[in-house]
């Protein structure tokens, strides 16, 4: 009997759940969803790769490649915080599930100036 008010409210209220995946909730503005990379700003300083706790970032300095392993990434936001050029940002949208462990390869375009500090 004590549960009755809750039961009545449930009968007339709508469902608390969403019809996922037909209806999805907009991600919150500052949620950590996935890593986004801006090729034009990166100068291959390598701070992100050194500080990443999940070893999810690789650099190929010869080919000027910035390689992200999304299956290892824990979206902790450390890379975005330490990047001295703000080339890495965290977007709030969740990454879709994937079937293969494929690395995402970007090509860094900015050039490191002489005597420039590399963030660490």
């Amino acid at each position, binding site marked *: 009997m004590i*549960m009755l008010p809750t039961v009545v409210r449930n009968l007339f209220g709508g469902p608390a759940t969403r019809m996922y995946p037909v209806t999805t909730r907009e991600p919150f503005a500052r949620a950590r969803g996935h890593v986004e990379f801006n090729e034009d700003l990166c100068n291959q300083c390598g701070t992100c790769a050194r500080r990443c706790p999940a070893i999810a970032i690789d650099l190929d300095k010869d080919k000027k490649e910035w390689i992200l392993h999304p299956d290892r990434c824990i979206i902790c936001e450390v890379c975005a915080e330490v990047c001295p050029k703000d080339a890495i940002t965290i977007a709030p949208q969740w990454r879709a599930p994937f079937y293969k462990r494929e690395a995402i390869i970007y090509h860094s375009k900015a050039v490191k100036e002489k005597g420039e500090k590399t963030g660490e």
Partner: protein
Amino acid sequence: MAPRTITPFGPQHPVLPEPIQLKLELEDERVVGVVPAIGYGHRGIEKACELNEYPKNIYLCERICGICSAIHGMTYCDVVEKLWPLEIPPRASYLRTIWAEMARTHSHLLWLGLLADAFGFESMFMQYWRIREKVLDILEITTGHRVTQSVSIVGGVRRDIDDDQKKHCIEVLKDVRKEAEALNNVLVNDYTVKARTVGKGVLSYDQAIALGLCGPHLRASGVKEDCRTQGYWAYGDLSYEPIVATGGDSFSRAAVRVGELYQAIDLQLEAFGKLPEGELAAKPKGNPPANEAVSRVEQPRGEVFYYAKGNGTRNLERLRVRTPTYANIPSLLVMLPGCELADVPIIVLSIDPCISCTER
């Protein structure tokens, strides 16, 4: 005398979200002996923490446990700060307190739901988890993630709560309190709930102290013992008094957690009111020095203990974690003998077991 049988309870059991095995010695339906077997969830996190650089361990320590992940990260930061020692800014200590209490709110709501589920009250389980979702949402709004918040760093916190978020959090928390009150009223007063919990798994004051228990489990036996009374972070400034029940049974453990749920919301509201302005983090100088430190922090399940030893490099020489469930499991050996088989799930759940925490 009826013949004795050994019945395994777990490691896979509907009431256990995590693997622990209890070998129950039964005489008909009555439990006469119990042997717990742990070790199904060992991941070697303590050793991995020695191999990682110290700032990277925060994210590893947060993954010791899913429910108290924020507090694990904060306690790790706390113990590493004590190696220097490093003073954290007042705003950071308030924010840590707010997030720790938010974690406690959602953890206790989760546990109350699981308790309802353990005695078959499915609709109440759903209702508790519906409320819990609101707390997880404000955690995601303020920290960026609903489970592994990753807000703490060595020296302070990484994120700030601005005025809009603060206003929103206060509104949601008041709403959560109102909705939880309606449900807790059912839990505390309903006849069937009382029939399943009152007098089940009784531990006296002396037994609770002799077994070295911690957390709500200890306080339900009448012992006024809580790590938050040390006054770490902002707890020293807030009006905080441990919640104690005297029954020592499963019902008292639920009552303590219901009380702590309200108290956690009140502490957050008070902390939001007193939130000072200022820096978010202090910058540590160099590597952690060759020194030893311990830190004791109250988690939703009880006291977590961290020990760290630095050696002047970026890696720690040793990190040791003792989690609350490890201290609480021995009480099962005292509570279970003599009870009915049907009461075993409720008694096991009443210590709020977190097995992955225990084994790391």
